């Protein structure tokens, strides 16, 4: 279970306070107007911003003082998720190993994920050759390939049409069930995601 226990942040000149719980294997949709600290909350959980007070607990482990890359978290950003000089294949492969040398089994896993997200035919392309939606799907593939128990998705469906949003959500759902992933999803596409969410938090 993820527990956000009285977490606060004052870095923007006004106080932000968060206090909620997300059960293991649940999908929590975080919604609300822009500038209310949704991305800040994810950044604090991921470790990019230090909270000024409170505790972030996941599966009984306090995350506050754990190094960013050691946290059981995989995060998707709003933008610039992909490295422009790496092909789709290598961008996705970073989710498996940062050395970019994949074993045959890892290659198979990558191709399977690419197929599920509809990007198999794009593996040799570069990010600049993709549409916004295709780029987000590649980034999503990388995030899912990391197989961390806590997924933080910050506006993962920006630029995707309804068909691909549903497809991506189905893939996320499948992965969630398969690996019992706990997911925090920040999105403005409330109506489409609502039915997949176990709880909705409006900030």
């Amino acid at each position: 279970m993820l527990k956000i226990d009285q977490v606060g942040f004052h870095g923007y000149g006004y106080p932000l306070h968060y206090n909620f719980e997300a059960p293991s294997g649940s999908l929590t949709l975080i919604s609300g107007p822009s500038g209310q600290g949704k991305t800040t909350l994810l950044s604090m959980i991921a470790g990019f911003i230090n909270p000024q007070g409170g505790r972030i607990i996941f599966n009984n482990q306090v995350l506050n003082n754990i190094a960013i890359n050691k946290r059981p978290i995989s995060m998707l950003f709003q933008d610039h998720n992909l490295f422009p000089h790496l092909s789709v294949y290598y961008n996705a492969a970073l989710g498996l190993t940062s050395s970019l040398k994949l074993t045959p089994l890892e290659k198979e896993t990558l191709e399977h994920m690419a197929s599920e997200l509809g990007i198999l035919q794009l593996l040799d392309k570069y990010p600049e050759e993709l549409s916004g939606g295709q780029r987000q799907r590649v980034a999503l593939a990388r995030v899912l390939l990391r197989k961390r128990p806590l997924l933080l998705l910050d506006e993962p469906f920006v630029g995707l049409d309804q068909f691909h949003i549903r497809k991506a959500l189905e893939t996320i759902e499948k992965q969630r069930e398969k690996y019992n992933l706990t997911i925090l999803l920040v999105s403005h596409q409330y109506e489409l995601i609502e039915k997949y969410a176990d709880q909705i938090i409006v900030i």
Partner: protein
Amino acid sequence: MRSLSYPIILFLLILILGSLGSLFIVSYAKPWQTIFDDYLYDVLSFSLKQAFISSFLSLIIGLLMTRSHIHATNSSLKKFVGKALGLPFILPTMVMIQILLHLFGHNGWFKLPFSMYSESGIIFTHIILNVPFVVFLMRQVWEEIPQEHWRTAKHLGFSSWQFWKIIEWPMVRSYLLHAFVPVFLLCFTSFTPVLILSPTPTQVTLEVAIYQSFMFELDFGNIVGLVLLQLFVGLLILFLFPNLLPFKHEKTSYMVKSVEIVSRAERFFHDSIIYFTLFVLLMMGLALLETTLDANMFEVYFSSEFFMSLIRSTLIACLAGVISTVAAVGLLKCPFIQTMQSYISILPVVIPTVTLGAGLYIFIGRHFPDLSLLFVILINALVGLPFALRLLQGRLHAVHRKYHQRILEIRLTPEQQWKFVEKPLLYPSLKLSFALVTAISFGDLGAIILFSSHENPTLTALMYQYIESLDMQGSACIAFALLVCISALFIFIQNMGGTRAKN
């Protein structure tokens, strides 16, 4: 100001085309084979060779320093060193050379494996002068790395090597030529370091060769050959790399502090580089202070020669600053010039001071020998013009973007637009432009030495006279005075009319 655009463009065109035309007319009267002789070949090969080695090494060292600057941990120290590295942009080259000679010369504090008065000494000086420029350019590259890439790297647990290989190197690689070309051109057209440190008459750049021909032979044919060659190489590089010269600096989004990527050992290395840079900068400051204090300051500072040079320098620099700033505003009103901005910004290195001076002298200067100081002012203003244009362009665009609609709505005339909108909003940038061109002109040696060094010296020309007569303490006094004057001018100009600038 819009009405000024076309007279300014016309004036500049007459000057540039007239100078080039005169050169061609003079060269036409001289057989080409006598212009391109062995001496010219030696000068050209030396210019290219030293420029290549200097710029290559400057780039390597500059890259290393930039990376250290990005990854070092002490942020206040980084900030201080970053600002101190900006000094070579406004400090006269003469002052920097004076300091280097005191540190590494024959009786210097540190011994180098080579003499400062040699080809290696020239390359070493070029490296010291250009590394800050490389750091300035390459820092922009790092600043263009999106914050998300830094975060992704930390998130995925990249090692230092992976971070360099996957994120930094691809960005750096795509900008290497952008940094190399301007540094190469700066070293290729170098004047003051080569003039002072060159060991033999053939180990000089084209700029110095032009000056030597001008001063000792006054052989127009020879001068024309050298000037044309200088222009040819500069324009060839501009033609070969038209898109390389200006940097497209748009964002500053890196968050190095919050997501340190590199290992502790590497961080220690980067910190050491920053401390070493600080040490070198401190040594440079102390070296200048020591020679100045050792010298008979009163004798130098209370001489009428010094006093007159100071007045001349101030007058030339301030007038050049005014002309350059006014011309820049006028030119920016012309849409054609705005599209040519990237080419104009590189002109000072393609057509350097001595080349420009020689062209102007052949065109009109020789017919009006009494107006030599006016030509010095004009050349300094022309050299400073691209800097003024660059400084003012961004601000003027921002003002237009913000107020264009409103100006149209209330139907302001161009004069009213300048008086009520642009002038008040541009005031801080106008001051900065004036301060920068004034500082650059204050440190100029090329134009003054070409036109009027002995009878009417400026401070830099006087300093050169001291160095020529091997009076290093006298030259240190002038170097110190130059440093104080430029700093004072900069502070004074920046604080001039502060309230109005805020409004």
